[in-house]
């Protein structure tokens, strides 16, 4: 198994700084959902990771911890993060994107 970035939606939606989306070396990997966290009263959305694109460099973790000082991103084992975003389940909309969460490990339900 290997490590991928996992963003805590609640911490992220509380600040919505979008820094990690700008610092990821992989394209279309850290995406942004303007509606994330709405059910908990947050207005400006949160970032999420399409884990099939993540190479596990942890650059976003450094940016979140040291530049933004939000500590919202952690590196986690892919088989232990539960349902998460995958490129094939991402839908783009008008200035936003959303993902239907699914199990990232093939063969597991």
């Amino acid at each position, binding site marked *: 198994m290997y490590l991928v970035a996992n963003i805590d939606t609640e911490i992220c939606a509380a600040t919505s700084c979008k820094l990690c989306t700008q*610092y990821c*070396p992989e*394209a279309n990997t850290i*995406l942004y959902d303007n509606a994330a966290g709405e059910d908990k009263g947050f207005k400006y959305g949160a970032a999420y990771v399409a884990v099939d694109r993540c*190479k596990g460099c942890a*650059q976003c973790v450094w940016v979140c911890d040291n*530049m933004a000082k939000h500590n919202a991103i952690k590196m986690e084992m892919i088989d232990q993060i539960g349902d998460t975003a995958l490129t094939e389940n991402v839908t*783009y909309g008008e200035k*936003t*994107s959303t993902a239907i969460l699914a199990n990232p490990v093939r063969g597991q339900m």
Partner: protein
Amino acid sequence: MSLDYVKFTPGFGKFMPKEYRDMVEHGPFGKKTSVSQVGTFKEILEEHPMCAGCAMTLFIRLAIIAFPNPEDTITVGTAGCGRLAISQAAIPFVYGNYGDQNGVASGLTRGLRLRFGDKPKDVVVMAGDGGMADIGFAQTLHSWFRKEKFTTIMLDNEVYGNTGGQESGMTNKNQVLKMAPLGKKFEKMDMLGMAKVAGCAYVATVVPNNPRRVESVIKKAVLVAREIGPSYIQAYTSCNIEYAIPTDKVMEDAKTVETDRYKFSEYITDEAKEYLSQLYGYKEYLPKPAAAVEKK
């Protein structure tokens, strides 16, 4: 070249991969997108085989987002790491033989101007320090002296990263590398100075730890190259493999190097300032009112 070249032939859309459909329907073509909106639109750059945490990839990604008209842009590259990512973008990429990239871009720019006249078609050369300062040095300098109107971007990782760590002209003096065990014997080449002497209208250094600045610098360089003359950007894009930087510390290194020896610098000719302020509304280049000048 137009917006149509990315669209599907009618009836074939449903057979296309999801990434392609997303790019046509939600990509930045024909729209104004910026680095601050990243993550909410489909980027032109796709999956690529560059190393995890590579700062060069981050810079290429930001540069491609920053192109003012991606649908009217052609990138030119050469051997080196950079081309592995640049060629994975949905804009035409021309592969110049090693060192030929600025020569190829010269011909391409002239050809596009003959074919399309005044309609802006941007040519952007993105190559490494080896391709530009060592092997393609003559062609790079000559294209600047001839005032060829295209943008040259050096992805300066200060080493031949793709071939095992040989020193390049842009490596710092005394730097020990895997294939330079005694350390480099001479100073880092002053390509910025040479660009100014050779007559580039816009010259800048940038480090990718400031994405908004990368965006602004690339936009200005491409716009200046449309009408005024050659533009040159030198970007520090560390090689975390050859310089043994842990991937999560790449941005920390970029920050240290930026404060230490790669400070942001910008050189722009008066003609380019006037052009940017009048045609594209860059307020910082507007001539200062006479009253304000007198007070000083």
